């Protein structure tokens, strides 16, 4: 029996606003607990929620960015539960009228484009943070400490349809969504800070079947690496259970980073158990055309648009996606540099390979002011036109990272310009042939690996001052006519 996995992702995005979702408490990033609280976010009796306009603008931007339709007449619901991380005993969320519905995101896996259908984008509030005291194991804690600073911070939940078919695809989807919220400027999008938190709903079913298997929700994956590992593990676990004729129970499991397994947390509540009902404190929320237009006008960039701009320069889909998901300065530097070099591949390779590599090695996180696209393009053109060797290009770049130099003047002042003077090359070639007669005698054809060795010898004797392409040409002519 062949089984196929089906995955649906639920992602929570913390919005980057000044104040909380339903009260004016400042959103704080601090280890000092319980310092940004008021009667509303503490759930004290009589306190009333008033929604944050900026957060609604942001969720409309995100919905539009994920190609969703906007629900113009929506509302908030209460999701009831008894965990202590929200002291009201309910979370204000949205149920049957989410802000965004029926959207999609394009994702890139290697050099292929896929589409992930988005089911809904809804607004809610974040919970407080719980610290479990005791043996360190979540299920044997002796007491729980609560910090409500995060309670009430605007949170958007983005839910995909169950159509993701592998861990790799789930990771590419999260990368795309993360880039979208960063490009829209609505969230810091830092996974390590919990700005983006994701759960995966996984099931396996027989290949070709229209029905999905029993769904298991996986929580506690706080990096893309753990997301990938947890999904792969869970698919294997469920596949084995089905093959062994064991029944899978609908439950929530958490990813144990130390043991690298998923462990059962609790039997999953069904939607009915949350007893959703419309929040009587919050009347209908109307999102009119004017509001949508204002939000739309704030969208300056999306990863999809950036990718198209990069593809237009001639780059492959996977290279475009690499720059799309990388740091902003590198994306901008590539676009301005390629304009001057006109060579997408060598510009991409030099900036992402050599430049980033040297910056990492020298522990430089920001380019010095004087390193601009003009200088980098001039350097790339120098070696692409065979005026300098790649080794010299690397040396010049290293110098440029610490000193304001002009690559071209530096190359000529330091005698790095390669000679294409055939007489000079011919003299060197003759010398190398004479000194390596034993090798010359073993040569069988122009493709022989030993040709490369002889070219290397000529380069060595010239101290890399001659153009290797011209050397090979002259050498082959001398040897094979």
């Amino acid at each position, binding site marked *: 029996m062949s089984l196929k996995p089906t995955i649906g992702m639920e992602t929570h995005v913390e919005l980057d*606003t*000044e*104040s909380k979702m339903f009260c*004016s*408490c*400042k*959103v704080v990033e601090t280890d*000092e*607990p*319980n*310092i*940004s*609280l*008021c*009667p509303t976010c*503490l759930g004290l009796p009589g306190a009333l929620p*008033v*929604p*944050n*306009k*900026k*957060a*609604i603008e942001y969720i409309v931007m995100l919905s539009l960015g994920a190609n969703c339709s906007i629900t113009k*007449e929506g*509302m908030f619901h209460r999701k*009831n539960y*008894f*965990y*202590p*991380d929200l002291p009201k005993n309910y979370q204000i969320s949205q149920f049957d*009228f989410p802000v965004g519905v029926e959207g999609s995101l394009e994702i890139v896996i290697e050099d292929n484009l896929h589409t992930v259908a988005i089911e809904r984008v809804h607004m809610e509030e974040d919970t407080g943070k*719980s*610290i*479990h*005291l*005791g043996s360190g194991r*979540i*299920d044997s*804690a*002796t*007491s*729980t*400490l*609560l*910090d*409500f600073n995060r309670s009430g911070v605007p949170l958007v939940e983005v839910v995909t349809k169950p159509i993701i078919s592998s861990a790799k695809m789930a990771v590419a989807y999260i990368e795309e969504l993360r880039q979208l919220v960063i490009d829209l400027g609505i969230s810091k999008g830092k996974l390590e800070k919990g700005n983006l938190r994701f759960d995966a709903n996984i099931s396996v079913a027989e290949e070709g079947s229209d029905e999905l298997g029993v769904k298991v929700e996986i929580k506690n994956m706080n990096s893309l690496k753990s997301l990938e590992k947890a999904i792969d593990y869970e698919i294997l676990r469920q596949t084995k259970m089905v093959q062994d004729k064991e029944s899978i129970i609908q439950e929530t499991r958490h990813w144990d980073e130390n043991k690298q397994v998923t462990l059962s*947390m*609790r039997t999953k509540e069904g939607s009915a*158990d949350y*007893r959703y009902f*419309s929040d*009587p404190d*919050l*009347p*209908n*929320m*109307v999102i009119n055309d004017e509001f949508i237009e204002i939000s739309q006008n704030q969208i300056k960039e999306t990863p999809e648009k950036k990718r198209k701009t990069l593809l237009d320069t001639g780059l492959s889909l996977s290279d475009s996606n690499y720059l799309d998901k990388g740091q902003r300065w590198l994306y901008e530097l590539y676009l301005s540099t390629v304009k001057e070099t006109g060579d997408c591949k060598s510009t991409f390779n030099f900036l992402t390979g050599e430049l980033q590599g040297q910056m990492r090695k020298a522990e430089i996180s920001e380019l010095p002011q004087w390193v601009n696209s003009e200088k980098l393009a001039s350097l790339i053109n120098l070696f692409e036109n065979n005026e300098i060797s790649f080794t010299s290009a690397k040396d010049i770049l290293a110098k440029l990272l610490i000193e304001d130099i002009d690559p071209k003047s530096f190359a000529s002042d330091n005698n790095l310009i390669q000679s294409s003077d055939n007489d000079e090359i011919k003299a060197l070639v003759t010398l190398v042939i004479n000194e390596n007669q034993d090798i010359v005698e073993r040569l069988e054809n122009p493709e022989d690996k030993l040709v490369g060795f002889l070219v290397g010898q000529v380069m060595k004797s010239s101290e890399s001052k001659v153009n290797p392409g011209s050397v090979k040409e002259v050498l082959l002519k001398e040897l094979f006519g």
Partner: protein
Amino acid sequence: MTKDFNIDDISNLASIHLEEKEKLKLQKDLEIVLEHVDALKNIDVKDEKIDIHPLSKILDLREDESTPSLSHEDAMKNSPETKDGHFVVPPSIE
């Protein structure tokens, strides 16, 4: 049709402990409530406009500006137990 609910599930979700006697009484009461709700299903509403919220008022939004909150001391004042600036509650998962 909706009478087959489980009173134990409901008391569990509401975090309310019920004695056997109370369970029997509430079972009967809730069955009557559900019968009333069932009666609503017989009303023909197909030509009615959907009212998604009991209030017709439109939600007011506020600008994204922060104002000073309660002091840490005031926020913690009603808590029976605190530790290192945190509220302490019985162990709970999730």
